[in-house]
């Protein structure tokens, strides 16, 4: 008996005593615990930084088909420009579609939980006396701002979604089936109303000015205006969305046209507060000289930190070549071939002719009409040459013969030259040569082929120069594979956002140019659109804001406030800023624009038929779109909701 008594006693003692020490509850030495983080204001600031990090901004590091914060080249800024739809990755054809179907659902909901936990932490820290009531108010407002931003991203993609406005941990009944945690989808209308309410909560607690990149009251109101305009457009154009199904009949997607005006009014009032009270103004004011106007406009995007008067909310970057995980790839990816910083993929942003044609010229008649580039003597600028290298009509069509390759673009809106590199324009001191072929003295066109002809002792090259990427930047190798297509395929390359005066090294994540997420120009345009669509607000002021933007671009006349003018102005002013794709989505234009449609280019050809060099311009299909035109199907206005076996949500129509 004694033989086993002692071992049993000692076993009980060891097991029992083990429970009396903390050795199972040691804190990790490599992580900061929640208690430490929430017991000082410095710790709380770490959590605030996290809020800005999870704000789903569609910035230089957003890649629609991959995710947010993609900083290296594989996930870099590769598709950022696709968001704007008038432009695209030059080298790829990417099938027949034009829509982004990647699910960011779980990212959003993970982050919504982070915000809700953050809001709880803030009120606890305030109750514990760690932070003052004023500080708590601002921090909480930053939480609401982030949450509104996440729900805006969700609603744009899925329509009405489950609204989770608190931490659900206390709801769970142990041993139950967890059904108390399942929140059904709110209607699309209720979802947008929740977003606007969060924006209001944020605006109420945020300061009017900051010296860093944190959100202000004006940022919250600008977000509200953006969201309200989105919701209003969905309601107003609901009859253009014609999918049937349970989500439609329950109001989980789409809204009624009668809901539109209430949202437009919210947009108008948010814009008015910013315009009247924020002290923001357009950088540069009215301009007289187009060249100076172009400089002013380009500088806003090249040096956003010096455009604080106009910028409302932005995100800055550290140099990723020094600090791993920071920086972005704007310059290495998108600089024109002749001035690429040296990375192996470059010149990937071929701006389409569809955008270039939208800009006005300065021979204004006060109507604000777009002035498409003139290429033909018969004025038929809607005609496009299919398979241009194989098309006999090229030799017989009456083209306008220009003496200089730059002539067709010389009188166009200053914002074109500030946003787009057109053939023959200068970038960082280098003339950018873009040419798709030549018509030789015998009258025969040579397009997409490398050839030369000597006339009067001068050798002319079909691509405008001898060596690709050294002497020329266009068309050679268009449509090739991903590593072989660093060239414009449309005749145009992007200039906006590039660090033309201070090019970084050709290493991934080397760019540090600040991303402007919201600026006064968008607020002006949101106001003008809401006024013209709803008939509410002040029409005179709306017209004035519209024309203020044009006057900054050196236009001297005034144009009337019409829907057409507002939408055109939006495209040319906000090109590349991540809004145009969502504009087409909310206005239900995607399925009309992209119905077996191709993106277009304008190809300069050297014309030697007269014996002296002239230039003609041929309208073409972007090469990849020639055989695979693009179609957007209506179901893509709302993505399929993932995880329905578990979350039991009603799916969107068509899936």
């Amino acid at each position: 008996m004694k033989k086993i008594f002692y071992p049993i006693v000692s076993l009980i003692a060891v097991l029992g005593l083990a429970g009396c020490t903390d050795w199972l509850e040691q804190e990790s030495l490599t992580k900061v615990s929640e208690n430490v983080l929430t017991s000082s204001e410095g710790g709380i600031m770490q959590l605030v930084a996290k809020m800005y990090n999870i704000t789903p901004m569609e910035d230089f590091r957003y890649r629609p088909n991959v995710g947010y914060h993609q900083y290296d080249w594989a996930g870099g800024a590769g598709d950022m420009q696709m968001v704007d739809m008038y432009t695209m990755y030059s080298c790829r054809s990417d099938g027949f579609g034009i829509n982004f179907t990647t699910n960011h659902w779980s990212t959003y909901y993970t982050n919504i939980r982070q915000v809700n936990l953050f809001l709880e932490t803030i009120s606890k820290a305030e109750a514990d006396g760690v932070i003052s009531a004023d500080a708590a108010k601002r921090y909480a407002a930053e939480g609401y701002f982030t949450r509104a931003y996440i729900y805006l991203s969700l609603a744009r993609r899925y329509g009405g979604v489950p609204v989770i406005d608190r931490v659900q941990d206390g709801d769970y009944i142990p041993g139950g089936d967890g059904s108390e945690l399942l929140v059904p989808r709110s209607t699309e209308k209720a979802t947008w109303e929740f977003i606007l309410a969060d924006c209001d909560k944020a605006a109420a607690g945020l300061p009017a000015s900051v010296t860093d990149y944190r959100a202000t009251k004006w940022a919250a109101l600008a977000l509200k205006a953006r969201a309200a305009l989105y919701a209003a457009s969905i309601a107003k154009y609901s009859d253009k969305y014609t999918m049937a199904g349970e989500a439609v009949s329950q109001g989980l997607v789409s809204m009624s046209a009668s809901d539109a005006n209430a949202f437009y009014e919210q947009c108008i009032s948010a814009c008015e507060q910013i315009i009247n009270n924020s002290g923001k103004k357009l950088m540069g004011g009215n301009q007289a000289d187009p060249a100076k106007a172009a400089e002013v406009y380009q500088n806003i995007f090249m040096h956003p930190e010096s455009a604080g008067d106009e910028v409302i909310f932005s995100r800055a970057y550290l140099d990723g070549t020094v600090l791993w995980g920071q920086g972005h790839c704007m310059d290495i990816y998108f600089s024109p071939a002749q001035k690429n910083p040296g990375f192996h993929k470059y010149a990937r942003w071929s701006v389409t002719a569809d955008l270039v044609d939208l800009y006005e010229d300065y021979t204004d008649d006060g109507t604000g009409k777009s002035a498409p580039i003139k290429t033909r003597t018969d004025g038929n600028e809607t005609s496009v040459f299919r398979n241009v290298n194989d098309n006999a009509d090229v030799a017989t069509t009456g083209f306008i013969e220009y003496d200089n390759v730059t002539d067709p673009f010389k009188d166009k809106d200053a914002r074109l030259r500030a946003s787009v590199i057109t053939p023959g324009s200068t970038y960082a001191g280098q003339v950018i040569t873009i040419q798709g072929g030549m018509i030789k003295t015998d009258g025969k066109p040579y397009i997409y082929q490398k050839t030369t002809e000597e006339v009067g002792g001068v050798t002319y090259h079909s691509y405008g120069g001898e060596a690709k990427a050294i002497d020329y930047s266009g068309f050679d190798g268009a449509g090739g594979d991903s590593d072989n297509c660093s060239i414009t395929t449309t005749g145009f390359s992007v200039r906006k956002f590039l660090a033309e005066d201070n090019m970084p090294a050709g290493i991934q994540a080397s760019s540090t140019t600040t991303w402007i997420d919201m600026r006064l120009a968008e607020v002006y345009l949101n106001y003008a659109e809401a006024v013209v669509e709803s008939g509410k607000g002040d029409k005179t002021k709306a017209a004035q804001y519209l024309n203020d933007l044009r006057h900054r671009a050196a236009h001297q006349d005034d144009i009337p406030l019409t829907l057409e003018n507002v939408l055109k102005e939006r495209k040319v002013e906000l090109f590349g800023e991540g809004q145009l794709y969502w504009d087409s989505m909310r206005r239900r234009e995607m399925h009309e624009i992209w119905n077996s449609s191709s993106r277009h280019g304008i190809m300069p050809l050297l014309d030697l038929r007269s014996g002296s060099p002239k230039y003609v311009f041929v309208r073409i299909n972007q090469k990849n779109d020639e055989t695979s035109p693009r179609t957007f199907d209506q179901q893509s206005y709302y993505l399929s909701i993932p995880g329905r076996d578990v979350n039991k949500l009603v799916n969107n129509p068509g899936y």
Partner: protein
Amino acid sequence: MKKALLLAASVLFLLTSCKLDNYEGPNARVFGRILDAKTGELVGTDIQQGSQLMVYEQGYAAAETHSNGQTWVIQNTGEYRNNLVFAARYEVIFQNGNFYGFTDFMDVKTGDNEIDWKVTPYLRVKDCTIDKSGNTVTAKFKLEGGKGDETVSEVRLFAFSDIWVGNYVKFALTGGTDVQKPNEVVDPTKEYTLTIDVSQNSSFFKYTGKNYYFRVGAKASVPGAGTIRHNYSELKKIAF
């Protein structure tokens, strides 16, 4: 004895893990046709983004609330087939297609199940002829409405290099004579004529001695019906 017991226990323990724990695979096949309730003809659609069956297996909460189901594609011809189905009762929803939508149930038994669906197409393409003469392909046809008061929003002559020709699988033709947007209430007496100028589209019709495929598609406009897809004539093969 103890050893034997231990051994027996060990063997039993080991053997329990030898049982196959996979479920049975699908045991039924479902196939059939989408038929025009009035004429008994097949109602053809697009192979991509065409009409489809939305199928919900009864007995599962997620399926009964329509939060999770299956989508079965209908072929160009108007036939469908799924060879990997579990025998069960299913709810079937037709919507956003080229005929008036409805909901029904089907009982799928083990083995083959032939299930045809009688539908009312939005439009019928009648008396359709598609011929090539010289460098012109001409289609002549009339239209009839499923209920009679549909609006015709588009008629189009589709061409492609294989049988999948339709609204999503087609040559992007130049010339503009292959499509009309009448926007008028369907008139059964009206004859439409659409043409394709082959010489203007020589980059598509590249080869002689090869077959090209054509279909006439007509798209209706019916308020509140959801997305409406094209109704098609029969496929026409023409050797160039």
